[in-house]
C-alpha cells in the first residue's frame, strides 16, 4: 500500500488464510469454509504480492464492543483472515476465586458478563449449591427465573441497540435503552443495584420481593411487548437491514457445533439446543415455552432468534409471576460454606449461550480451582470462519451478532 508502510505486514504473516485463492479477487461471494479448513496448514503462505492491507481494528474502536482487538487482513475491502487479540480486560477472576470464600466470590461473577449479571450469579449459586448438595427453595427458584429472564431481555435489548448501531441504524439504540431502563428499575428496587446486581445467594435469595414486585413485573410485561414490535417495525422488514444481515456471517450447524458455539448463535443455525430445556435448572421445567431456531445461520436469523427469545422470556416471566409460590426464600445452608471434597460442573443458558462453572473443592472454605466456561469467549472463535470473504463492514456486523461482552471474554 502507498501511505501505510509495507513492513508491518510481515509481522502478522502467520495470519495465513485457509483455503482462499488469491485469484478470485473482486468477487465478494464467499466460499463455504468447511470444518476441516480451520487448521492453518501452511502458516508461511501469505498474500504479500497482492494489494493486501493489515488493519488493526480496536482495541479503541467504536464497533468492537469494548476492548476487542481484531487484526484484519484485507484485500481491498475483502477480509482474507482475522485474528482476535483479547485480554485487554483481563482481571484474573478465576484466580481471585481461589483466594476468596465461596460467599465472598459471589459478587465477582457479576463483573464478567456485566450486561447479564443476574445470569452469572444464578450459574455460580447453582453450581455451589450442587457442590453443597442443597437445593434452593421453590419461591427462590421462581424469583430467580423471573429476574434471570428479565435480565435476558435486558441483555438482548442492549445487544439489539448496539448491533443496529454497528450496522448504522442509530435510533433503535435509544429505544432499547429506554425500555431496558424499566428492567433496571426493577433490579434496583429488588436488590439496590442496577448493573452488577448480586441478586442471589448460595441457597436461595437474600431479599424477599418488595411490595408491588409482581404488579410491577406484570406492568413491565404489558409495557414491553408492544415495544418489541416497535423494534421489529424499524428493522425486520427494512430493506437495508435485510440486505446487510441476510447471508452475512453464515455458520453451518456442523461448524457451530465443532467450534463449541452455543446460545442464539447456535440456535440460528438450526440446532435446537437450549439448556433450559435440555437440562432444566432452577424452575424452568415447570414453564411452557419454545426454543426459537433459525434455518440459515446468518446474521438475520440470529436477529430473529433473539427477538423471538425476548417474547419467549416474556411468556416465562408471565407464567412465573402468576404462579409464584409462597414460602421461605433461603434453603438451610451453613453460615460458613465448606463444601465436601469434589468437583462439579454446572452450566446454565445465559443470554449469550452456555455459561458453565467448574469448581474443584478441597474441602476448605475457598475453591481449590474455579473455571468459567464463558459463552462469549467460545462464540468469539467463530468470528474468523464467519467473516472470511466478507467485507470490512460485515466484520462489524458479525462482531455485533455474536454478542460478545469483553468482560466475559477476558474475565
Amino acid at each position: 500500500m502507498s501511505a501505510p508502510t509495507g513492513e508491518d505486514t510481515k509481522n502478522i504473516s502467520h495470519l495465513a488464510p485457509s483455503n482462499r485463492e488469491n485469484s478470485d479477487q473482486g468477487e465478494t461471494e464467499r466460499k463455504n469454509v468447511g470444518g476441516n479448513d480451520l487448521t492453518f496448514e501452511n502458516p508461511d503462505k501469505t498474500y504479500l504480492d497482492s494489494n493486501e492491507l493489515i488493519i488493526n481494528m480496536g482495541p479503541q474502536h467504536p464497533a468492537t464492543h469494548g476492548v476487542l482487538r481484531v487484526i484484519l487482513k484485507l484485500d481491498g475491502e475483502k477480509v482474507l483472515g482475522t485474528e482476535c487479540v483479547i485480554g485487554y480486560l483481563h482481571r484474573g477472576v478465576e484466580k481471585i476465586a481461589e483466594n476468596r470464600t465461596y460467599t465472598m466470590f459471589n459478587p465477582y461473577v457479576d463483573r464478567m458478563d456485566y450486561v447479564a449479571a443476574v445470569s452469572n450469579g444464578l450459574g455460580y449459586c447453582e453450581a455451589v449449591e450442587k457442590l453443597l448438595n442443597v437445593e434452593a427453595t421453590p419461591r427462590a427458584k421462581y424469583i430467580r427465573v423471573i429476574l434471570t429472564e428479565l435480565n435476558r431481555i435486558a441483555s438482548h435489548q442492549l445487544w439489539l441497540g448496539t448491533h443496529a448501531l454497528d450496522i448504522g441504524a442509530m435510533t433503535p439504540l435509544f429505544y432499547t435503552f429506554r425500555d431496558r431502563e424499566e428492567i433496571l428499575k426493577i433490579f434496583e428496587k429488588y436488590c439496590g443495584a442496577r448493573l452488577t446486581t448480586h441478586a442471589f445467594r448460595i441457597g436461595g435469595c437474600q431479599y424477599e420481593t418488595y411490595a408491588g414486585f409482581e404488579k410491577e413485573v406484570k406492568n413491565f410485561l404489558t409495557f414491553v411487548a408492544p415495544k418489541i414490535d416497535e423494534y421489529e417495525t424499524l428493522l425486520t422488514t427494512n430493506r437495508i437491514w435485510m440486505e446487510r444481515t441476510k447471508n452475512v456471517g453464515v455458520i453451518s450447524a456442523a461448524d457451530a457445533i465443532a467450534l463449541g458455539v452455543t446460545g442464539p448463535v447456535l440456535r440460528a443455525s438450526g440446532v435446537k439446543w437450549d439448556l433450559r430445556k435440555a437440562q432444566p435448572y432452577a424452575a424452568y421445567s415447570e414453564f411452557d415455552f419454545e426454543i426459537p431456531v433459525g434455518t440459515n445461520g446468518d446474521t438475520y436469523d440470529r436477529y430473529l432468534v433473539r427477538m423471538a427469545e425476548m417474547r419467549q422470556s416474556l411468556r416465562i416471566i408471565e407464567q412465573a409471576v402468576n404462579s409464584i409460590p409462597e414460602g421461605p426464600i433461603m434453603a438451610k445452608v451453613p453460615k460458613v460454606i465448606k463444601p465436601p471434597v469434589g468437583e462439579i460442573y454446572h452450566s446454565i443458558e445465559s443470554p449469550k449461550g452456555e455459561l458453565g462453572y467448574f469448581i474443584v473443592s478441597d474441602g476448605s472454605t475457598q475453591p481449590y480451582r474455579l473455571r468459567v466456561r464463558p459463552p462469549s469467549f467460545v462464540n468469539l472463535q467463530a468470528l474468523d470462519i464467519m467473516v472470511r470473504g466478507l467485507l470490512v463492514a460485515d466484520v462489524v456486523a458479525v462482531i455485533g451478532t455474536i454478542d460478545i461482552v469483553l468482560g466475559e471474554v477476558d474475565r
Partner: protein
Amino acid sequence: MPNMIAIWMPNFIMSYLGSTVTPGEAGSQFWALIYVLIIFAGVSVAVMSMNWLERKALAHFQIRLGPMRVGPHGLLQPIADALKLMLKEDIIPSEADQFVFWVAPLIGLLAAFTVYTVIPFGPSQAVSDMNIGILFMLGVSSLGVLGVVVAGWASNSHYPLIGALRSSAQMVSYEVAMGLAVVSAILMTSLNEKGTGTLSMIGIVRAQEQQGIWFIFKFFPLGLIAFIVFAIAMIAETNRAPFDMAEAESELTAGYHTEYSGLRWSLFMLAEYAAMIAVSSIAVTLWLGGWMRPFVRLLHGPSWDFIFSLFPGLTFLGLAAIAFVGVLRMPAHSFFKIQKIGLEAFGGLLGFIALMLLVIAIAGRSQDPSIGSRLNESIGYIYWFLLKVAVFMYLFIWYRATWPRYRFDQLMRVGWKVLLPISLAVLIVTAIVGVLVA
C-alpha cells in the same frame, strides 16, 4: 472629486436595485460582490443552524432532548462548538503529507462554496446566470470528492485510506446516474416553440414557469422517477446516511477525516453541509420549480398572490409562537431565568421579523413596479426556494435517523444496476414523449 463620488455612489448602488437580471448579467461588479458576501455569510449561518436542527431533530427522533445547556434549548450550541473547534490544537500527524493534509479541507470547502454562484434564489437573486449553469454546478461539486480522496491519502493511516477509496468510487459512480437524471430534466426545458432547451439554472426555472408545471409532475411519472433517482444519488454524493460509507463511524471510526481535528475537521463539516444545501438546491431548481410558489396555475390572480405573499411573515410568526410557548413551558426556577429571557428575546426577534415581512407584504401588494412591490416579490422568491430546500434538509436528517447503512458493494450495486438503468430508461422515454408532444 468627493462631491462627484457622493453623487455617483448612490447612483451606482441604486442602478442595479430595480433590475430584473442577476448582477452578473447586469455587469454590476459591486452588487455581485455584495451577493457573494451575502451568500457566504448566509451559507455559514445556514450550516450552523442546520447543525443545531440536526442534533435537535435527531434527538427528538431518538427520545432524547439534544443540546439543552448552551442557551435556551441549546440555541447557542453551534456557536459554542465553533468556538471550541477554532481554539483546539491543530494537529497534523507527523507521518502525514503536511502540504496535502493542509490543502485537502480547502479543496472540499472551495468546491462546496463555489457552486453557490449560480444557484438561483430568485429570477435576479443569484450572483450570476451562466449559460452552462447546471453543468458548472455538477462539475464544481464533483471537485469536492478530490478533497475527500486527498485527505484520506494524506493522513497516512489505514482507515482514512479505505474511506477515501470508498468515497471516490462511490461519488464517481453516483455522478453517472445523477447526471442522466439531470439530463432528462433539461430535456423538458426544450418543450417550447423554439425547441431549444437551456442549461442555465434560471432558464430551467423560467421553462417551468412558461410551461406552468413543476418538472416533477411533467409527463407523470417520468419527472417523478427522474427526481427520485436524483434524490437518492444526491444522498450518496454528499456522503450522508444511509450512504455514509466514507465516514461510517462503526466501521472506519471516522473514515477520511479520522486524523483531522479542530478547525480543519470543522472545515470538512462545513463543506459537507454546504454541499448538502447545494445539491438540494439543484433538485429544487430542476424539479420543484425553484423560486415558484406552489399552485401557480391553479390559484392565480392578485388576491391569491397576496395570500401567498403573507406566508413568509406567517412562518416567522409561527416560529415566534413556538419560541413563546417554549418560554411558557420553562420551569419556574431561578436557574432558568436567563434562559427564559434569552428565549423571549429570540422570540421577540422572530416576531419583529414576522411583523416586518407582513408589513412589506401588505404595503407591496400593488402590481405597479415600486421598490415595495419589488421587495415583496423578492422575499417571496427567496422564501419559497429556501422552504423547499429546507424540506430536503429535514429529509436528510430523517433518513439518518431511520435507516441502517448500506454496505459498500450493495451501494455500488444500487448505483450501477438499479439507478443507472432507471435513469437511462427515463431519459430515453422522456425524449420520445417529448418528440411526440412537440
